[in-house]
């Protein structure tokens, strides 16, 4: 962990704080009235707001999780720097790819 990774992880955490609460609120709201998947999609598809909300969430989660995983592997298994950077980038890019697919499926028309 150097200062750049540290700052990226803290910054992504700061971004995630309101997004996590927003996500929890949306989940609770969505199931209260018994919204169907179709009704949810009709609200999210074509919505720039939800695209930005969950798009930013996916990026922040991917950055935060990848750096965290790097630290865990470093301290738990004592991998070398090459292996640590490989798993960090691999996990981060995979998370962004999978997250972007989900966000596009829910918010694009």
């Amino acid at each position, binding site marked *: *962990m*150097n*200062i*750049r*990774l*540290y*700052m990226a992880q*803290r910054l992504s955490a700061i971004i995630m704080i309101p997004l996590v609460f927003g996500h929890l609120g949306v989940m609770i709201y969505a199931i209260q009235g018994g919204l169907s998947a179709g009704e949810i999609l009709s609200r999210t598809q074509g919505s720039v707001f939800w695209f930005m909300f969950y798009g930013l969430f996916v990026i922040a989660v991917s950055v935060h999780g990848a750096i965290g995983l790097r*630290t865990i592997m*470093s*301290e*738990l298994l*004592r991998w070398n*720097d090459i292996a640590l950077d490989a798993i960090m980038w691999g996990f981060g890019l995979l998370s962004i790819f999978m997250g972007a697919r989900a966000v596009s499926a829910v918010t694009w028309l």
Partner: protein
Amino acid sequence: MANTNDTMTVKVWRGDKNGGAYQQFVVPRQDNQTVLDVVSWIQQNQDPNLSYRFACRVGMCGSCAMMVNGTPRWTCRTHVNKVLDANTLVVAPLRNLPPIKDLVADMDPFFDKWIDAGGHHDPSASRYDAMPQIAPDDAQRAVANESIECINCAVCYAACDTVAHNENYLGPAALQRAWTLYNDEKVNDTDAVLAAVSGKGGCHNCHSQGSCSLYCPNELNPMRAIAGLKAATIKHQLKRGR
């Protein structure tokens, strides 16, 4: 000697860098007895081959720290009464440092990291310049003063789980020293101090578990010093980026 109320069981780690095991001794109990007294009694009365390290015996020099019942402590100021568990003491060399022999740990990694963290004085003035005037109640000086009572005993280093899992991590004592230097007006290049603690093993590896501050025998707060370094390095980085 049988183990009675007047005696206690003391298990002492014997060995070297290749490994070792605990050897059991029965030691007489005395009023106001310290753990260092116990180790000295064993060396003087039971086994003169027992190796351990001490100097001042009054909590000044920082050389007698050992693991006592699993906890790092300065043994010269640790009363047996306070740490005895089931009438037994388990004494071992400091954790996170390679053992040399018996209770003597190799302090080289600890002091090497002290240097790596920039822990030397880089003066801002020569002997021909006037002494800088620093008011004792100056806020920055007060922060620098918080950590100057460190005796380099390595108790915090032995207590730190991050040190245990990350061999590059500079550790609480070295980072606390860097924080003192950063806040010392007489230090020439504080940017160099921040650079020294921003690398691979730097202050950003700290998980703020707080064992350093919990076990420091002088009741210093290395965790707060490290938090200060984290904030200072981020401010410095943001300023540089502009």
